[in-house]
């Protein structure tokens, strides 16, 4: 393990404090996210429970948030070298999990993407995202400057990526493929793969997408629903039109916290993928930008932590995890505002979904851990 030498001894003992702004931003988003989730899900909860409670979704989410905070605390204390060492095992386990979904998976909303382990229902793709980021980070360190060469920068990284994408393709989990592909491209770029290959890859993906749309009627309909939702307001255009009604009717200052009208079952998925539309309706443009701002700050701060990390592995890992949050956030916002056709991508910290929230918080814990090493180094540099 040549790379292991790069990890400072002190760092393994977690000497320095975590990055406070990053922690504060994470906790802020989590808190606001839970508050918004309560409002957005209250009507659905009331309906589901025949008007006996409005907090059904909030309760479940809060439990997961608690678990996630524990994971965040714990992960912020696990030295990065542990992830470096576990990179390959985690990678293979996640592939096995992805493949097992195809056999023992559970169908939710028409897609077979969930498995049950010891009564715990979760999406292996959440683990797979993490596994891919860790492995690409490890390869970044191992390849070093060789990443500029085709053999490593493209074939090496690409091979690792395909190992995850192929099972996902078998699951037909298009949104996860897109998400991981984009995160991987960002990571490869940061690792030093020549941009021309990445552009070529992006072009290839675009051509594939066009061909896919051309020959798969279903995806073609999706494009029509995206460009002209008003043509079929009752069916394929329903979701996006309801989202646009919610956003547009928010106006500058919104209808007021808790006062969304679209959440009364007009807007489907109002408590998960389309929660941001409720934010816009209730809090207006001001509130929506007010919520986008901490996301942006979190992302900028996260990349700063990545830059200041002590080695290429930590840099890549922090950048990868932050890229995952950034790409998810942006894709979600684009879908909700109909800049992109609808795909199932949740808004981190806000959307209802226990696994995702816990995993996101755990990942923030890892970034926090990496921020310690940066602190250490800054202190050392100051001391020198």
């Amino acid at each position: 393990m040549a790379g292991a030498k790069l990890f400072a001894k002190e760092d393994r003992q977690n000497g320095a404090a975590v990055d406070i702004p990053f922690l504060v931003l994470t906790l802020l988003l989590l808190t606001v996210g839970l508050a918004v989730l309560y409002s957005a899900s209250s009507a659905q909860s009331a309906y589901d429970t025949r008007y006996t409670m409005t907090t059904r979704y909030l309760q479940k989410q809060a439990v997961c948030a608690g678990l996630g905070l524990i994971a965040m605390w714990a992960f912020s204390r696990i030295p990065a070298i542990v992830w470096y060492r576990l990179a390959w095992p985690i990678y293979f386990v996640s592939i096995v999990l992805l493949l097992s979904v195809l056999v023992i998976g559970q169908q939710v909303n028409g897609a077979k993407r969930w498995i049950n382990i010891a009564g715990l229902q979760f999406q292996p793709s959440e683990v797979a995202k993490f596994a891919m980021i860790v492995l690409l980070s490890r390869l970044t360190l191992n390849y070093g400057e060789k990443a500029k060469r085709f053999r490593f920068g493209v074939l090496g990284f690409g091979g690792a990526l395909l190992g995850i994408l192929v099972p996902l393709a078998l699951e037909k989990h298009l949104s996860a493929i897109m998400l991981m592909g984009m995160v991987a491209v960002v990571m490869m770029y940061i690792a030093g793969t020549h941009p021309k290959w990445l552009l070529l890859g992006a072009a290839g993906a675009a051509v594939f997408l066009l061909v896919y749309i051309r020959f798969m009627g279903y995806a073609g309909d999706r494009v029509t629903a995206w460009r002209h939702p008003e043509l079929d307001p009752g069916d394929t255009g329903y979701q996006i039109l309801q989202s646009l009604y919610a956003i547009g009717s928010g106006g500058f200052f919104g209808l007021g916290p808790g006062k969304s009208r679209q959440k009364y079952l007009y807007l489907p998925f109002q408590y998960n993928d389309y929660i941001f539309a409720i934010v816009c309706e209730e809090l207006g443009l001001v509130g929506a930008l007010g919520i986008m701002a901490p996301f942006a700050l979190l992302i900028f701060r996260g990349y700063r932590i990545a830059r200041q990390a002590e080695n290429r592995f930590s840099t890549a890992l922090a950048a990868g995890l932050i890229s995952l949050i950034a790409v998810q956030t942006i894709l979600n916002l684009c879908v909700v505002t109909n800049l992109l056709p609808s795909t199932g991508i949740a808004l981190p910290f806000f959307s209802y979904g226990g696994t995702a929230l816990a995993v996101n918080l755990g990942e923030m814990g890892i970034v926090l851990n990496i921020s310690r090493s940066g602190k250490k180094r800054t202190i050392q540099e100051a001391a020198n």
Partner: protein
Amino acid sequence: MDSAQHWRIRLTALMLGVLGFLTVAARLYRLMVVDYDYYAAKALNNQTRSTAAASNRGYVYDRNMNILAASQSVENVYLDPHELKQSQADLTRIAAFLSPLLERDARWILEQGQDLRRRYKQVGSRIPEDTAAKIRDYIQEENISGIHLEPAALRTYPFETLAAQVIGFTNLSGQGSEGIEAAYDSFLSGKTGKVITTKGNNEMDMPFSYENFTASQTGCSVVLTLDATIQEILEKQLRAAIDRYDVRNGAFGLVMNCKTGEILAMATLGSYDPNDYQLVWDEDVRAALEKAQSTYTQYPQGSAEYLQGKQSYETALTQARLKQWRNRVLSDGYEPGSTFKALTMAAALDCGAIDLNTSFYCKGAEQIPGRSQLLHCWRAAGHGSEKTPQALQNSCNLAFAHIALKLGGERFYDYVKTFGILEKTGIDLSGESKGVFFDKALVTNTDKWGTASLTSGSFGQTFKITPLQLVRAIASVVNGGNLLEPYIVSEVIDKDGNTVLKQEPTVVRRTISPRTSETMRTLIRSVVTEGTAKNASVAGFSIGGKTGTSEKIDVFDENCQRVLDKIVSFVGIAPMEDPEYIVLAALDTPSRSTGIYISGGVMAAPTVGAVMTDILPYLGVRRNYTEDDLPGRQILLPDCAGLSAKEAQELLKDSGLSSRCVGSGETVTGQIPAAGMSLPGGSEVLLYFGETPEERLVTVPDFLGKTRQQAADLAGTLGLYILASGNPDTAAGVTAISQDMAAGTQVRAGTTITIRFADGSAED
């Protein structure tokens, strides 16, 4: 640390920040600030429900308040699959319950209920109220959420095909299409009332409240000038003509009041039933369409043959529907042919280009100056020497060519314009066209264009006008010179019976002087008494009119040769002393196969005569018999019982009947026919003395094709009486074309059979 990597991370952060967040922020600004009003309105509309929608559409009545179109409250049933799923309803049971009520397959209903992509799945359309009540009870008892009922309206047309193109129909969303339903839609439809309330989806309660109420308003009703009885008579006679002359392409006709412009009847055959307006009514066309459909469905779906066959089938279906919905009286131009000569002559007399003594000579064909082709008269032998009245009576083309030349292009064109031929009539129905007339230069600049258009135009050829344009122009010729705006709605009344709109006769302009009009009345009358239209005569009424036979100028066969299909027509007017009603009948493409000479005089004139026979008494026009009319007059047989022979004979003679005595005795003991029956004038009545006449049944023979004399002999031997109508000539060419009792019917001896005679060789 690798500084290049630093920069790549910075660049990544910047890209995501700018491309991602700023793009989204700009998009939000657009949606929430720029387009706020649009989305706020959409959202409000989305979150509010309007209920109690249906307003009652007004009725359409004829002039005697017979209901031509009525509305009935019905309901639509729809499922909300989402709601059914949420409430965990037992779909299979629901489907099994609804299936017999809605007359739908239970499996189909089940599929609708399972289609989670939609919130609205209609499973029952326009079901009656009692069925709706059953469903409502079921929903209540079983406490189901997800089955909904909504009010709707069903339009019914009690007279079915009668005047279908005039009345029109309403489409599936209740809007008027075609005819009165379309033209008066804004009056008929009323205002849909609304109760607007906020409701969460799936009937969730919602703290935000918004309520608004608009009272619904029942639509106004429309009273037509149309008379269903007259309409029925017109359609019946047109249908009879279609059968008799094997007319291939339908017929159309019109009855108008020539003093007011009120439309009393307006018919286009073949018709359709507005209760089922999508159905192609013509059986032959429907059979052909069904055959075309079964042909293409044999091919595999998606194959070239399938798609091509499907497309041509759908095109043909649409065309067949549009054709049957079309009101030819005002939407389609046709060549008026010789009927137009009445206008040409009126113009020439009015401006003094000719007078009643102007002479013409017809030698069958003539080289008219300015016309390249030799002009033929319809009668190859020629009409010889004739004056103005004979020119019209004979419908002589050569004479009219000369009249046109005397009139000159300028004046001809000006009169045509005055007669309203270049404009729409302004009738209150949609879809009116104004025909196609020559460019002005074509008839006025004879130096450049020759006289072909002017001369052909004078006898109604090589241009097209609508039947309605022609009829109102001719009406002005006989009514003293007033060009009227025809109308079909006399009154619009609201639901309480208050008049909302009342139409009065409108004179658009003066066409000819009253004096010319008076002259024209005499001339037009003489066409029926002396000329080509004797077949239109009706005993006791002074009918006038003009015949027309025109070739269709724009129909070509597959070899691009002009098809010699003809439209034969007749415009009749009665009574001629003081014209009240004008009747047009036109038959499109009578078949050559019947062997009957194809002309307006032979086919259309008796059709109009038959219409007049029925409608004039109904309209209360007084009969005015002349001596000649006696056989055509119906006389109520007086009761002669108890009278002496002399008294009885006197009585019958005064009534216009003759008598013969049978048996011996003082007083009349019986008579054949019995008192109270009506007999043709001049008929012989048998008076019985001292004995009672036996009741005898006879079988009605087939009179068709018999001359007047033959028919009278045949009837005489059987003890039947004949009431003759139509062409009064006793010439050999005049034969029976219809009888009011079918051959083979058993009737009492002494019954009167009405027989219509027409000259099978009358030309125009």
